């Protein structure tokens, strides 16, 4: 892999998940969307704006000690549609996945419509239907096409 030299700038992990080919600048949104903030003691390395062949600049996120499931990573398609997911065990990549667009994402984004019931104190999590080019709140119907990252519920 021609990216290997650059990847070395971010320490190799022993076991866990490497999320590669994240658009430059989106690494922290990737962590937010996955609900990973290090508070559970996970060891996280982030490489930002690393030169890449496929993207001009890309981010890389490495999470030590956690293998992310396909459902967990599919939600990344909203902000990093070209991300690749490498599951690492004993320094070897044992599985490689792409992200698929899920039909629905729950509890990940918050609705930008202040008049929407899902933004209040009700015991429900936000639910968005995912279209090819947009997401739509399943409570109030608001459609968001741009800046989906800004809706990430942190």
């Amino acid at each position, binding site marked *: 892999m021609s990216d290997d030299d650059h990847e070395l700038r971010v320490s190799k992990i022993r076991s866990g998940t490497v999320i590669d080919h994240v658009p430059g600048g989106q690494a922290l949104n990737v962590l937010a969307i996955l609900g990973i903030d290090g508070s559970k003691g996970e060891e996280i390395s982030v490489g930002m704006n690393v030169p890449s062949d496929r993207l001009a600049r890309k981010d890389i996120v490495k999470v030590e000690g956690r293998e992310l499931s396909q459902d967990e990573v599919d939600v990344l398609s909203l902000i990093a549609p070209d991300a690749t997911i490498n599951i690492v065990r004993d320094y070897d990549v044992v599985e490689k996945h792409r992200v698929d667009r899920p039909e629905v994402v729950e509890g990940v984004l918050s609705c930008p419509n202040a*008049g929407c019931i899902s933004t209040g104190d009700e015991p*429900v999590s936000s639910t968005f239907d995912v279209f090819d080019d947009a997401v*739509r*709140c399943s*409570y109030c*119907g608001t459609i968001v096409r741009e800046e989906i990252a800004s809706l990430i519920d942190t």
Partner: protein
Amino acid sequence: MRHDHVITSKQLSRSDIETVLDRAAEIRDDPTAVADRHAGALLGLLFFEPSTRTKMSFETAMKRLGGDVVDMGSVESSSVKKGETLADTVRVIEGYADALVLRHPKQGAATMASEFVDVPLLNAGDGAGQHPTQTLLDLYTIRENAGLEDLTIGIMGDLKYGRTVHSLAYALSNFDAHQHFISPESLRLPREVVYDLHQEQERAQVREHEALEEILPSLDVLYVTRIQRERFPDETEYQKIAGEYQIDVDTLEAASDDLTVMHPLPRVDEIAPEVDETEHAAYFEQAHNGVPVRMALLDLLLSDDEGETDE
């Protein structure tokens, strides 16, 4: 009816709508036939914002079916004021009533509430969202006055925030109606609604206009809604716009003799009182139709609940 809840007009198929309208016509022709049909049944009224007419209309409908209502009272005097969630409120009142009617200022409130209850829940307005029972009585009135086949309708006023408009537009797209939306630029239909009408409901024929004159002569129905003063930052801006979307006898000279003028009421000054005396005016009849239509809907939902077939 295939549905336990009536949340948006999007969920109503043409045959659902026709079932309700046909039943409403039967009930209006012979109200005594259903006078005791739901004796002992209780309808829970949960109005989180004031709406005397819609509430009274549901109350009348339920009582005319032989049932009764329980009412949570005004928001000021209820536990909501103490910070109870809507989810909790509906779960409690569900235990008292056979069906619930919900009016709430937040969009999506009825969708959410329906996730927490098993009894039928009727959305009586959720913020700028939907008002499907209003839509059914609007459709009933249109069918009586102009027919739903080959309809050309103009919908005018505040199309942005008007939930009755959004609800009606979705329902009309089941009937291949030609829909003309007339409003100032700042109060056009939300893009979401236009998207749905064009994308999801391919048969909808939708046009947008800024001036009524462009389209008035071709209309079978003109549905007028109120432009709210509080939507405008300054009064002169409101005055300038509002005047162009008010109708009087002079305006209607350009219309067909058969034009039906509707309005969900209350009106302020968008329809001059002199129009009331003309053959065009159907808005009071429209308001009255709320009772047989809501009787029909409640009858269908409560009958399902009592174990009859729902085919």
